[in-house]
């Protein structure tokens, strides 16, 4: 299942590594990645494939949220379908 991971927070060293290591540990494959820093704020968007994930999707979502908060980051994962539905006919 393809999903979009977004990470928003104050920029600092190692955010990408931090988030990617959580994903890797749980068998989530990163397909595409894009990031920018705008006025000190870090925004990263990743397209991932969660079909090999060892956790149920809802647990993965809760884990990312929790681990993100630990580093003062807003991390969320949402199924790609929702964006397709809203922005493509």
């Amino acid at each position, binding site marked *: 299942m393809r999903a*979009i991971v*977004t990470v928003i927070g104050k920029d600092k060293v190692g955010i990408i590594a931090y988030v990617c290591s959580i994903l890797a540990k749980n068998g989530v494959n990163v397909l*595409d990645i*894009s990031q920018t820093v705008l006025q000190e704020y870090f*925004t990263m*968007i990743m*397209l991932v494939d969660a079909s090999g994930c060892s956790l149920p*999707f*809802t647990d993965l*979502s*809760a884990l990312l949220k929790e681990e993100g908060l630990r580093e003062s980051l807003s991390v*969320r*994962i*949402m*199924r*790609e*379908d*929702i*964006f*397709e*539905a*809203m*922005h*493509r006919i």
Partner: protein
Amino acid sequence: MINKSEILQTIEMIDQQHLDIRTITMGISLRDCADPDVEKSCRKVYEKIVSKANMLVKTGEDIEKEFGIPIVNKRISVTPVSLVAESSKTISYVPFAEAMDKAAKEVGVNFIGGFSALVHKGFTVGDRILIDSIPEALAVTERVCSSVNVATTRAGINMDAVKLMGDIILKGAEKTKDAGGMACAKLVVFANAVEDNPFMAGAFHGVGEPECVINVGVSGPGVVHTALKSCAGAPFDIVAETIKKTAFRITRMGQLVAREASRRLDVPFGVVDLSLAPTPAIGDSVADILEELGLESVGTHGTTAALALLNDAVKKGGVMASGHVGGLSGAFIPVSEDAGMIKAVKRGALSIEKLEAMTCVCSVGLDMIAVPGDTPGSTIAAIIADEAAIGIVNNKTTAVRIIPVPGKTVGDSVDFGGLLGTATVMPVNAFSSRAFIERGGRIPAPLNALRN
């Protein structure tokens, strides 16, 4: 692939503009629960609701987490109880309401609708018992919602029922006077009620509906409001186009969730109800949208036109986004549930008369309006009659959810809590409608009923 700005736009809609699925409502037929023995029948009602809906809340929560879209309410609507309870030998249907309430608590839904009767042309024995049971039923239960349909375009207005409902509303308020007349916040009097409405308090599972069905109500006044900020001063053509595009996106999301819920629960998908439903939260207001269009306060001259445009554009945008559109579909204007409306009442800009005009062009009717506790039943009945007349002549659904707050008078405030919000008591016309309401009988169906 979806581009970055679209992804961030969606997240901003959810985080800052209160975009959400307002409700996933499971409609359940109770037609097979009738029994001459009241206790047996109530047990069947309880068991059927629990067996059909036991996974509803869990499924809703799972979808919420996976898609990242808040699903605010999970609810249930059932066959109008007057049809189910009529076979039972009893003089009160309160036990049925209690069975519904118990089932709602068991499965974890916050409201269950369908303690209802359809009496637009007249009463059966069961309809009368049900209506007489409403004040008690709503006072002793927490989550049960009730509705009575008193008029249709095809049948005209049952003025005996209108008169009766004026008194029932007063009784309901009296029975829950410690809670500000809370029972009346759970009671809707309809004209042209729809069978597949997912929104409370007026939801029931109509007789033409299948055994079980999933209907979804979307919302998003905040998203429309934000979109309109980008077209300040622009002509109405551009305003309408902007609302349509936004409504399309919101509805697509609703359609996706509806399909997903239907698949997971193995229950057929019914409709998406494209409604702009406000909540008391700041930034989730229909009044704000109307004011964004250039009105100093909602309620001033121009409000009806603004609402007409909004209502129409929401439907046009949403209709292509969903396979089946139904329910009430349009803009809701519940006074206590909308921070902007309450502000307008407080500053004296919004009256019941203006709200009545607004109901000619919005999706429902006079909704969540608090009036003084000493308002006569005949005046409440006359307010219902006016709304029903607007409904049947214009072929639209209208409704009255009015709360005569015991012990309170004009300008007082009453808090219903949660999504029901806080209302300021509004004045009603002091002149009597009693002799008019006393006539009883039926107002004949309008000429436009004869469409064959």
